[in-house]
């Protein structure tokens, strides 16, 4: 089994729910073949984000992709959103089956 696993990157973005449509558009344009979005709550420099109503809701977007795409996406997020929005993103290694999917 181990030999069939290949290395990809898992990019996780936690951001304001209002950015969903915009970031999804960007992800597709920058080569992501898929993504998973979940509703999220939490606390950070923008205070408590409790998702009690739309303006205080967060989402977590996860993207499995190659390193090149992941870096391009991060660079774009930094340029486009980091100054004005509540957003963090981080990159970790992931081992995946069916590498051509990502």
């Amino acid at each position: 089994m181990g030999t069939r696993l290949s290395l990809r990157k898992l990019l996780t973005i936690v951001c304001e729910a209002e950015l969903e449509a915009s970031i999804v558009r960007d992800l597709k344009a920058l080569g992501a073949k898929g993504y998973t979005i979940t509703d999220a709550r939490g606390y950070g420099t923008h205070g408590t984000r409790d998702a009690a109503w739309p303006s205080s809701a967060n989402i977590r977007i996860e993207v499995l992709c190659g390193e090149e795409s992941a870096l391009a996406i991060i660079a774009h997020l930094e340029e486009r959103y980091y100054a004005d929005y509540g957003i963090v993103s981080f990159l970790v290694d992931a081992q995946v089956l069916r590498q051509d999917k990502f």
Partner: protein
Amino acid sequence: MPIEPVILFFILGLLAGLVRSDLKIPGVLYESLSIFLLLAIGLKGGVELSRYALTDLLGQALIVVLVATLIPLAAFPILHRFGRLARADAASIAAHYGSVSVVTFAVAASFLARLGEPAEGYLVVFLVLLEFPALLIGVILARRTTGATRWGALLHEVLSGKSIVLLVGGLLIGWVAGGEGIKPLDKLFFDLFKGMLAFFLLEMGLVAASRLADLRRSGPFLLAFATVMPPCAGLLGIVTANELGLSVGGAVLLATLYASASYIAAPAAMRIAVPEANPALSIGAALGITFPFNLLVGIPLYHWLAVKLQGVA
């Protein structure tokens, strides 16, 4: 005068939030209730609208919308010059105050119903028309010196937003169906309306309490603005209603529309179109101060003023 009971639900939510109760309205219920309220308000307006000739309303609608543009245009320099707020923040807050709050309107309508004060039902049309012009003005004010705006994305955000889709959709359905046609739906949309509104206000009390913390950081100017702006705009609404020959009830509703600040459509649109504006300021003022102010003080005040100024044009 006995207090409107739905407002007590708001106060309950506010108190629960302030004592940090674990009471929490699930996000899906918030969504469901807001869909219900928007549709019900639209339907009710549509049924009323079917009793009027649309061409008669065109002139009124134009005047109501034009006068309403004065609100963000006056609010912006006050916030920017006197309040020393950054251009983007001042423009965003001006947009929130120029736009309208559907729930404040619903509370005003039930306040009037309780008093037995009749009002022109077609004012719901003005509710729809007043929602978005101020948002566009806010973006123009924010952008006068810098940067390009993605107008396409903004227009899409504003016009395809759920509040416009449901209000306009409800209006059209109510208008097409008419009073008789809508009868089978009466029980759900009209009889249950107040109970649903009570639920929603409980939730808004909780949310408003959570916004108060933001306001502690924003200083006394914004607090003053959020309580002085609504009665000024409300007075403008009453004067305009008198010029148009609306009833006392109609004047209260128009005053409430002018005095209320949006906290559903405006935050979403401003976040996309003016991202550098701090949402804690605009939402804190609109929801933490102006919304409770209008519910508790504003609406009865506008009614008192409308009665005093009746027929003064």
